[in-house]
């Protein structure tokens, strides 16, 4: 008997909406709006570089609108806070 590492992580889809603007949609179910807010404060914020920000949060669509300068680096940083962007 061994405890193998759990891979309970959040899957997201990131869609471009215009220059430097993206929608991040959570594919993994979230419990409530508080959980979404917590993820933004404790995980997404940590992944934002200078000049990048969360523009809006839409609980009904489980999504965020983001201003991101370097999307490749942002996606990389998401991985380390347990958020996995879907394969494009």
């Amino acid at each position: 008997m061994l405890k193998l590492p759990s891979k309970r992580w959040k899957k997201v889809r990131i869609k471009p909406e215009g220059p430097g603007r993206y929608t991040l949609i959570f594919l993994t179910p979230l419990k409530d709006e508080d959980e979404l807010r917590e993820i933004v404060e404790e995980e997404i914020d940590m992944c934002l570089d200078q000049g990048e920000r969360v523009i809006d949060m839409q609980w009904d669509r489980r999504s965020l609108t983001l201003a991101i300068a370097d999307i490749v680096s942002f996606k990389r940083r998401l991985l380390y806070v347990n958020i996995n962007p879907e394969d494009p």
Partner: protein
Amino acid sequence: MKKALTSFLEQRDYFSERPMSICPVCLRVIPGVVRESEAGLLMEKTCPDHGVFKTTICTDLQRYKALCAADRKVTRPLARGSPSEHGCPDDCGLCPAHDQHTCLAILEITSRCDLGCPVCLAGSSVQGGDLQPAQVEHALKRLMEYEGGLTPIQISGGEPTLHPQLIEIVRLIRSLGGRGIELNSNGLALSGEPHLAQRLGEAGIASVYLQMDSLDPKVSKFIRGRDLVEAKVRAIENCLQAGLEVILSVTVVPGVNDQEIWDVVRFAMERRLTGVNFQAMTLTGRYPQEVGQGEDHFTSGHFLREIQRQSNGALREGDLTPIPCPDPRCGLISYALIHEGELLPLNRLLERSSLVDCLADLKDWPQTLRHLRPQPCGPCCGTREDRNLELLSDAMLGSDFFSIGFHAMMDPYCLDLDRVKRCCVHELTPEGKLIPFCLYNTKYRHTQP
């Protein structure tokens, strides 16, 4: 003369380990000696009353030495359950001689099982009894005293889905702070009752440790007494649909399913399961006499050799690291990505030293990733480690996580008390004692009320 002596020592490949073990018949403590033979590396021991016993403990001396030399990370428990009066292994509970805390507590809530497999380390059958929730609560509260909180818990048996209060027990563990609770199951109920997985998930079960030894119906019949392959596949589907993680647990029986290791890994990868843990069949409980000879053991050395051979190098010996919390001879692990359908072990992207802290206590992926997370720029900018992390990040995008483990379980034939003292997988008894799992199966299981 000096040249002759050097040559003699080289030929003999002198190895001076003298493990303390037990007699497989009367269970008294006796010394052993490690010797090389054509069959592999043997532990040889003599009981004054029951004679000589020889057991394979590794394929060869070189692999054995490499395992012995691997890194260890020790965290001692806050409190112990037993005083030391007679010495290891007679005071177990844990006693002050124990050299590791609990990484996984196994809580057997029933001794009943609906299968009665020909291979069963616990010797479970339809006869037996269940723990009451009050007993579970008492045991868990003792565990919290030893560890300062709940460790990961595996609910086991017997077959725990037979327990009429299973859901209540899962909720109880949750209410005491338990997270990542695992259910060890043969999968029969999970395959036949589609809503059971959902209910277990809602109560707090995070993953199912599903016993599945083979994809071959004949092998299933040999080890489990029935062809269970289709039932296991249905159980997997039901668990995944309910959002439960699935880890396959494979009992490796030498000469029966030891050539199917890679097939099972591929099967699990294709279904995006959490991982596969292989464990050696032990000569405890129930086992067929024709495969249960004391000398034949499937060891870490055998696993390393076989997985590299069967996978054609897709997983190499060096991709598996001795687990640093127990004795390094007791377990191997590879954290990997499934990248474009193929296995990409993390150690090919990162220095092994940067992984060792994650492997201690077998940290979950979220903790592992936070641990590996690139640090803000500083004097280390542009170092090799940063480039490695960049490679890791690129590989992780669109990939999935996976792990492969091997637990070199011990029985009365190969038991080594140094390994017992370092164990981190502990049986949690109803009295609230913690006993190293292999020692529990060998010496204590049938002394429990």
